[in-house]
């Protein structure tokens, strides 16, 4: 027998029973006898929603059955099976309605039977907002009472509303499980037809919250398919009536998970022999993602701790990437390769490390998700800094393989161990990136040999690959740029325009990051900016970019150029890694980075420069930017490019030397350009600097005056 034949035959059986029940009721009470469910404004809600017709008495019920019959077509097509499933549900509703003839309370506690409108209004809101993440419909008896109750409790623990039909109710009673709407476990009834009471909830939710018009069957099915996160767990043995009901559920978009060997339909009818996996299978089938509200660690987790400093004396242990091999890494994996919430520690834990010692650590966060893209890896990784800092008594700095982490003595004594790092990363990644992460596991490694091995053979090649991806991206090679307004909380008129060759001035948001941020949260801080209408290619000015900047700065900023320091330079918030400013005597620019505390030849320190550059105001001749931008071919391209750089602090110069030299070689054919650039060991005043530049033959001296 084909799957559809089973559905048809189950449907026929229920139809036969319904017809007989109605005929008997009419024979006993007459056709005018009123039929209704208590406490609902929606008549027989399922029938009303599907047809738009209210049934008030037995005679009309009989007519309605005639309408149901027209749904019961018998072609070997899913349409026919779906409609027969719907017909089965409607028959069930009719049979259940007859139970209420002359009996306002046919169900006795704990069974609820029909649920009043008020209950739906109460459940509906958290359901629609996602506070109740799903609705489980459990049908039949589990292989054992233990397994049944275990399953119910697992859903309950996730906030999922559980409805019970048939043998599972007795199993829950047997095990003394507390049931009721207040604990989100609602036994409906023993007969399989009582399942319609939960269908009725979904259908009325569509009418009440979804503004679906009664009679709009297609709209109703679309609503339940897209918005009601319900699913069915049907225990073996399945009879044809249950299969017919299942077809109705699937028609509404609710997958059926069963432990009986039967036909399989992806995302719809799933055979899971292991009842202990019903929960995970069901959630995945219905794409239900749980909000993680509590992180299982022995100390507090709050943004209040983000800026907390752990001094050496208070420190239990330190992991220091500048001395030993450390790294943090996010990897994209296939769903089958990731066990959700698995946290593994390889190597000694904190209690096996001497107090005050310096140790290796590496943590690898493997994520899987159908919408996951490897471009997001770096975005997640960059958040680890903030996540780990939010742990009370924990300090994290740096990124990639240059991280430093300190754990305080108090936190250690409170019971904090390394697996808790895993708990924090798991919980935050899963909740913040729920849109793309379906599964997440964390491996923490403290074994020094493995840290070394993995750092060089796994982490660094991955970082290099990401950097390489970034270097092949050019401003011309992409169709769109992105805005970034993450800083508007404190710099309300600043907008960064992030391009492949010009990352955000904080140094933390590359074009790929902005792209990922946009995809993860399309209404979020990074928005697409087109670049179709060019105004001036030399300074990088576009009509569409100007429009975007004006919009996102709430009108504070009219126009910006992407590549000029003098003409309409991009504004700065205050987060800049570096500031560059004009040094008139040498006809070039000096760059100071945030870490540099000394004097610059411009006559101002970094903080003095910052005071005149920040706040989202355009200051021609001064500009905040990221370190990475220094070696960009687009760095003040309008004024001649990197050849204008005459001075940088020594540390910064060393950091950017390789890339900057390569850029200068490519643009001007100059070898070892950095050797021509002054630093604080050469000059802190313009005259000495000029002497040095003249001696080196710095190209800026021969360029056109900037002002």
């Amino acid at each position, binding site marked *: 027998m084909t799957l559809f034949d089973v559905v048809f035959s189950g449907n026929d059986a229920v139809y036969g029973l319904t017809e007989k029940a109605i005929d008997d009721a009419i024979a006993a009470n007459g056709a005018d006898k009123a039929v209704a469910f208590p406490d609902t404004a929606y008549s027989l809600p399922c029938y009303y929603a599907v047809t738009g017709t209210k049934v008030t008495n037995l005679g009309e019920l009989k007519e309605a059955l005639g309408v149901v019959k027209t749904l019961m077509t018998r072609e070997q*097509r*899913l349409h026919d099976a779906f409609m027969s499933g719907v017909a089965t549900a409607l028959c069930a509703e009719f049979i259940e309605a007859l139970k209420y003839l002359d009996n306002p309370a046919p169900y006795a506690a704990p069974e609820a039977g029909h649920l009043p409108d008020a209950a739906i209004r109460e459940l509906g809101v958290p359901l629609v907002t996602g506070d109740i993440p799903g609705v489980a419909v459990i049908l039949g008896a589990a292989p054992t009472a233990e397994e049944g109750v275990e399953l119910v409790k697992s859903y309950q623990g996730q906030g999922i509303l559980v409805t019970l039909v048939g043998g599972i109710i007795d199993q829950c009673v047997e095990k003394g499980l507390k049931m009721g709407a207040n604990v989100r476990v609602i036994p409906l009834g023993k007969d399989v037809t009582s399942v319609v009471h939960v269908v009725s909830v979904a259908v009325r939710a569509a009418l009440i919250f979804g503004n679906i018009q009664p009679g709009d069957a297609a709209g109703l099915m679309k609503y339940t398919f897209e918005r009601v996160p319900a699913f069915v767990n049907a225990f073996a043995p399945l009879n044809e009536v249950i299969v017919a009901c299942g077809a109705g559920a699937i028609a509404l978009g609710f997958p059926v998970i069963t432990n009986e060997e039967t*036909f399989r339909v*992806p995302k719809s009818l799933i055979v*899971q022999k292991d009842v202990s996996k019903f929960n995970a299978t069901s959630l995945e089938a219905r794409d239900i993602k749980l909000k993680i509200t509590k992180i299982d660690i022995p100390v507090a987790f709050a943004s209040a701790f983000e800026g907390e400093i752990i001094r050496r004396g208070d420190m239990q242990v330190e992991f220091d990437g500048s001395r030993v091999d450390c790294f943090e890494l996010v990897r994209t994996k296939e769903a089958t390769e990731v066990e959700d919430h698995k946290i593994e520690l390889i190597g000694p834990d904190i209690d096996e490390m001497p107090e005050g010692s310096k140790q290796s650590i590496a943590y690898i966060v493997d994520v899987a998700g159908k919408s996951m893209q490897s471009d997001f890896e770096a975005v997640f990784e960059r958040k680890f800094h903030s996540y780990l800092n939010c742990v009370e008594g924990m300090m994290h700095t740096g990124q990639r393989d240059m991280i430093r982490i300190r754990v305080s003595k108090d936190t250690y004594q409170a019971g904090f161990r390394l697996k808790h790092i895993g708990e924090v990363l798991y919980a935050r990644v899963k909740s913040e990136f729920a849109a793309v992460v379906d599964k997440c596991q964390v491996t923490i490694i403290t074994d020094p040999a493995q840290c070394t091995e993995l750092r060089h053979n796994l982490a660094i090649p991955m970082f290099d690959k990401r950097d390489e991806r970034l270097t092949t991206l050019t401003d011309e090679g992409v169709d769109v740029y992105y805005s970034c307004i993450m800083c508007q909380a404190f710099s309300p008129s600043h907008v960064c325009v992030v391009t492949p060759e010009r990352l955000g001035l904080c140094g933390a948001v590359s074009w790929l990051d902005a792209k990922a941020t946009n995809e993860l949260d399309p209404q979020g801080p990074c928005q697409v900016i087109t670049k179709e209408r060019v105004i001036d290619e030399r300074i990088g000015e576009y009509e569409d970019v100007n429009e975007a900047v004006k919009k996102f700065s709430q009108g504070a900023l009219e126009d910006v150029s992407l590549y000029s320091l003098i003409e309409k330079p991009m504004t700065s918030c205050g987060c800049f890694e570096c500031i560059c400013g004009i040094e008139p005597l040498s006809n070039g620019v000096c760059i100071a980075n945030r870490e540099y505390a000394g004097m610059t030849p411009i006559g101002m320190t970094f903080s003095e420069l910052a005071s005149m550059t920040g706040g989202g105001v355009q200051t021609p001749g001064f500009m905040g930017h990221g370190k990475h931008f220094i070696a960009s071919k687009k760095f003040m391209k309008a004024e001649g490019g990197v050849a204008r750089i005459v001075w940088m602090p020594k540390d910064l110069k060393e950091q950017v030397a390789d890339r900057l030299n390569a850029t200068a070689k490519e643009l001007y054919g100059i070898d070892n350009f950095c050797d021509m650039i002054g630093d604080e060991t050469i000059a802190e005043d313009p005259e000495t600097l000029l002497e040095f530049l003249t001696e080196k033959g710095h190209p800026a001296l021969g360029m056109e005056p900037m002002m």
Partner: protein
Amino acid sequence: MGDFKLTTVEEFEAATARLLETGAKVGADAWQLRVKNQTPHCKFGEQGVCCRICSMGPCRITPKAPRGICGCDVHGIVGRNYLKFTAGGAATHSDHGREICHTLYHSSADGSYKVKDPEKLTRIAKEWGIETEGKDIYDLAHEVAYEALMEYGKPFGYSRWTARAPKHTQELWEKAEVLPRAIDREVSCSLHMSHMGCSSEPEALIRQSLRAGLCDGWGGSMCGTEFSDVLFGTPKPIDTEANLGVMVAENVNIVVHGHDPSLSEMICEYADDPEMIAYAKSMGAKGITVSGVCCTSNEVAMRRGIPMAGNFLQQENVVLTGACEAIVVDVQCIFPALGPLSKCFHTKFITTSKIAQMPDSEFIHFTVEDAADKAKAIVKMAIENFKNRKPELVHIPDMKQKATVGYSLEAIKKVLDGVTNSQVDELGTLKPLVECITSGVIRGAVAMVGCNNPKIRPDTAHIELMKKLIANDIIVVASGCSAQAAAKAGLMDKAAKDLCGAGLKRVCELADIPPVLHMGSCVDISRMMNLVADLAKDSGLNISQLPVVGCAPEWMSEKAVSIGNYVVATGIDTFLGVDPYVSGSTEVTNLLTDGIREWVEAAYTVEKDIEKLVDLMIERIEEKRKAIGI
């Protein structure tokens, strides 16, 4: 449903009529006119009963003259003609495949041609037992390419690719003596057998026809597909547009036409070059638009999202827009008519292959070594031609549809992974599709392939068949000009799910796919062979038991007959809307429509009534379901 609406054949025809008015103004010829001149067609030719393979003839068979001068009867003549027709097709596809192998052989890290899918290369190397460990990817590429080239002429053994077929299929082939040997050998052998004074027994001729077909589908074509993927990337879902409206009046329009992606890939590369775009702007255009016709279009659409201007019988329309700066062609299905037609406009007709040289064209010989320079020169030539446009002749029909294309077998598996449940399913298989089929949610699949043919109202058969199939929950995989017909109509827009039955619609929604999947060019029908082979393995059924059929309703070329032969020989019943010149022989007709079923468990059905053709396919699919009890 939003504002989604299919474009109708009537709308296509209205647009063509408008273009033909332009043609009339400039005195252009058109296939519509030439068809009239050629009608009625020679009846002897149509029935396949004319023999001119020696100079004693030509002989033609009639009731009064039942044998040729050599004594060959009608069955021998029809059979020989059929075999020669097949050999022509097999040679063509396979030589295209050979070109790709050569290109792969010359690929290098700093050359024009690189290996874009090293993973696939490694996979194939492992499949072929070639050591991959520690090898430079280009060394490996050259080694694999060499082995592939040997497939064409190796003295012993059978095609390597046939090992991909299910065991049962391989056994059938062996038993029927159709397991293909070296590719060139099967082509030569076919021409030898059909020489004067060789085979005249229909059974032997048809057996060799199947074998020659198999050396194409499980030989040369598979080389073409697999190594194009290695070189240019394995297609994955990508959005594009189709129909003449993709051409942009303000831009320099370059149209690529033909079959071999080596040329078109390079043209696309350079048309995207900022230097070229700037040059186009300096010439008064707003930019450069590359669009495609025929299978070259399918290739670049699948890999780059390059829009499809049209299919086979629309090639002249491209020039008739008056906005085509250059139509650049490689090989196969190119109308010689394009030469004289281009002279009526400013259009440059550029031939590039020694295989396809034509009068009234500019021949720029394109080779692996100088591909980049030549491509650049061609793009430049098109740009410089922009100023020669006659504005009064420019008319681009405002007609196009959105399409999501790029469903290689790898991509289909990836899509199916998306509907698995990691608690119960494994990844990278076709099992979710098998489950949809066995449960009845999808009734079956039809591979829609082939050309256009003026004998059928162009595109009607493709589009109408597909509409009825998807309404009956039958998923369609399409390639070649059939795929383009679907795209032009809008059937490759994901919104077309609303035209499906409830089952296919649900599948499209859950998997986020259009109901008609674009699997590539005509060479890429080899992808469909791999698809059914894996379907058979993942379902535990034989290919011939799967509720899957093939259909070429508007076919016209020799290649199509070769394709038909390998599709049937693979165990897939194949439905044709045009007779393959065999109606003159009852014996050959009976063999093809029935007799070969004993050898390969499948056969042809020819039905010129399109409405009946689709019903026959649905019927066959339901029969196959019944036979296996699903």
